[in-house]
């Protein structure tokens, strides 16, 4: 039984090992369609340079920048406006030099801009006589809806309002997709758009002219590590083939195909490269079963090691906590606080640590470390409760028999507390299976990947492809632990 479990674990761990000879590159992607598409093109082009290439879906700008600078990924698509405003928080005269300080290089622009802009229905704007942003000053009663981030950013609504002297007061936060829907239904007049949004073409919206040049340019470029140039110059050359090759119209269309028509981003990216004479990698012949198999293995590779590690640490910790009450309170408080850290914050915090420990700040090790920390509390708490709840007469009986401290712990106390400890492990396992979907934020795979991607694309079948098996796995785990609990209870009457 034990041997089978061990083999299973080793097998799971082995699955992720690949041929170490072929050089490998990792191309990062942010959590939105355009970034996936560009990263997909990046991996295809890199493969043409004869290396193994992998797309790493990471969460947000800070995660990608950290992953790039510490070498977990080699390149990712970024926007110049984001580089100056969010990454460097500075507008240097020489952007290339400013990035070189961090060991990072920047490609030439791909050709399209993904700027912030304001969008309206064409019939509504024509009726009101609006073509450019300064025209809005005449109409104080318009309803504006923006995403919350745009409402807060100085380069969003607050700056815009100041720069143009806009008088509107009915200005509220709203989800991006819902705002598009509201615009179409005329429940609002104006929202912020990204100039490459597929929805602009889909709904034939008017993008208002920024006649005072308020919005900065968000040119799409590659950011890549300076050492990539030395290690794999062919990869850099291949990535460079995208420079000046993508128009705004083309990007809008590609986004539209993925976002609205639910085409696969790898197909859309491949077809684009083909149309530009940059070859085409054959579509990977995957089906639901192989995809499910892969995500299930990935998910188990996150859940099982983190749960086992948590048991290995928490049970002794719980035992110690039950012996030293002051220490016990401290342990319970600490593990309780760990539980409240939001998963994205915890991942960002862990990335440098896991880089240092395991050589990689993204992927499974980081997700496992986070899951390990989240699993501690239920097991520590139940071990502590189980041990402190043992009737004093039983403990006295064991002592009076002449058993050693260790024998009492091993032969009497732990078995007596076992049902409670097991219940803690069950709780941890179920939480863990659900939380392991955070692997989707950090390129660790698992059910989180289709879930996050599906949410982002508004692709419900894709979301369910992760959510249903994750729920099933939780149910199966719950039932399996329940069966063990029942077996123990039946033995004891």
């Amino acid at each position, binding site marked *: 039984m034990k041997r089978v479990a061990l083999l299973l674990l080793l097998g799971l761990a082995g699955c992720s090992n690949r041929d170490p000879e072929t050089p490998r590159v990792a191309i990062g992607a942010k959590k939105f369609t355009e970034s996936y598409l560009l990263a997909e093109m990046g991996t295809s082009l890199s493969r043409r340079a004869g290396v193994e290439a992998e797309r790493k879906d990471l969460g947000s700008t800070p995660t990608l920048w950290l992953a790039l600078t510490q070498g977990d990924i080699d390149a990712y698509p970024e926007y110049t406006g984001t580089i100056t405003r969010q990454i460097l928080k500075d507008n240097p005269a020489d952007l290339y030099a400013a990035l070189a300080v961090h060991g990072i290089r920047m490609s030439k622009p791909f050709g399209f801009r993904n700027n912030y802009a304001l969008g309206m229905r064409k019939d509504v704007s024509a009726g009101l006589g609006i073509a450019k942003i300064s025209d809005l000053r005449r109409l104080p009663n318009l309803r504006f809806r923006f995403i919350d981030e745009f409402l807060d950013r100085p380069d969003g609504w607050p700056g815009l309002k100041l720069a143009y002297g806009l008088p509107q007061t009915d200005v509220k936060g709203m989800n991006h997709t819902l705002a598009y829907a509201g615009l179409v239904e005329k429940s609002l007049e104006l929202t912020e758009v990204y100039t490459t949004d597929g929805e602009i073409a889909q709904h034939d919206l008017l993008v208002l002219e920024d006649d005072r040049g308020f919005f900065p340019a968000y040119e799409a470029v590659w950011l890549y590590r300076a050492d990539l140039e030395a290690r794999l110059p062919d990869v850099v050359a291949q990535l460079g083939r995208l420079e000046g090759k993508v128009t705004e119209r083309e990007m809008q269309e590609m986004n539209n195909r993925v976002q609205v028509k639910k085409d696969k981003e790898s197909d859309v990216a491949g077809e684009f490269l083909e149309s530009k004479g940059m070859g085409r990698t054959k579509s990977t012949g995957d089906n639901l079963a192989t995809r499910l198999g892969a995500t299930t293995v990935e998910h188990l590779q996150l859940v099982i090691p983190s749960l086992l590690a948590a048991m290995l640490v928490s049970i002794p910790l719980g035992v110690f906590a039950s012996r030293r009450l002051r220490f016990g309170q401290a342990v319970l408080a600490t593990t309780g606080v760990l539980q409240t850290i939001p998963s994205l914050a915890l991942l960002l915090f862990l990335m440098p640590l896991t880089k240092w420990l395991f050589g990689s700040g993204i992927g499974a090790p980081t997700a496992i470390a986070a899951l390990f920390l989240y699993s501690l509390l239920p097991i520590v708490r139940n071990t502590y409760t189980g041990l402190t709840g043992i009737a004093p*007469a*039983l403990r*006295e*009986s*064991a*002592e*009076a*028999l*002449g*058993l*050693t401290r260790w*024998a009492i712990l091993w*032969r*009497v106390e732990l*078995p*007596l507390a*076992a049902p409670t400890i097991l219940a803690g492990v069950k709780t941890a396992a179920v939480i863990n299976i659900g939380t392991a979907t955070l692997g989707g934020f950090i390129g660790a795979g698992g059910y989180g990947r289709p879930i996050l991607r599906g949410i982002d694309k508004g692709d419900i079948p894709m979301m369910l492809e992760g959510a249903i098996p994750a729920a099933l796995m939780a149910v199966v785990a719950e039932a399996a632990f329940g069966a063990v609990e029942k077996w123990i209870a039946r*033995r*004891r*009457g």
Partner: protein
Amino acid sequence: MFHLDGTTKRFAGRTALGPITLALPAGKTTVLIGPSGCGKSTLLRLLIGLIDPDSGAVRFDNMPVTSVTARAIRLRVGYVLQDGGLFPHLSARGNVALLVRHLGWPAPKVESRIAELAALARFPTDALDRYPQHLSGGQRQRVGLMRALMLDPDALLLDEPLGALDPLVRAELQDDLREIFRTLGKTVVLVTHDLGEAAFFADRIVLLKDGAIVQAGAPADLWHRPADPFVTRFIQAQRGPQIPAEAA
């Protein structure tokens, strides 16, 4: 066998026992009796180092009872609690064999010793694989006794072993216990608050009150030569059945 020499035990500043000086002779049955809270269990715990005295000394077989010697002493002393103190996660057999399995006895030796003790304690062998929840109160007590006797100890301590049993089972077990004590000739210290039971078992009775000895002696001494009005009151408080007069 056991000696207490000016021994006191305090809990949270309050004296629970002592100072007490007392010798418990080998091969005899001593019964500790007294109102609840008078320190009987405390005295028993001191004897095998489950708690340490605040002052004075405790000796077993001329060996001081300390945290260092306690484990060796416990292996030579059996201890039976009210309701047996059995472990619910182990069967009757598992409870009896727990210690010797830990000590590495070979299985055949364990089995033959259990069979011997089951016969002695009149415990049905077919019930050995039951868990404590499925045993009657009397059976649990018999298993507790078997567990205490497993290593053939020099002394046996019993803390209100029959307190939770109904009268018929209790009477039967009293007979069996006294028979066993006489057969084995061990040093026995038994705690009870029932004077009838005390007189039934005792070679010597020690009457305690508020942590101090009021009188120690043969059962007859307490009846015929009470040392204190408290002894008389204690004896009179234990009434036999009041038989109503038969109607003429």
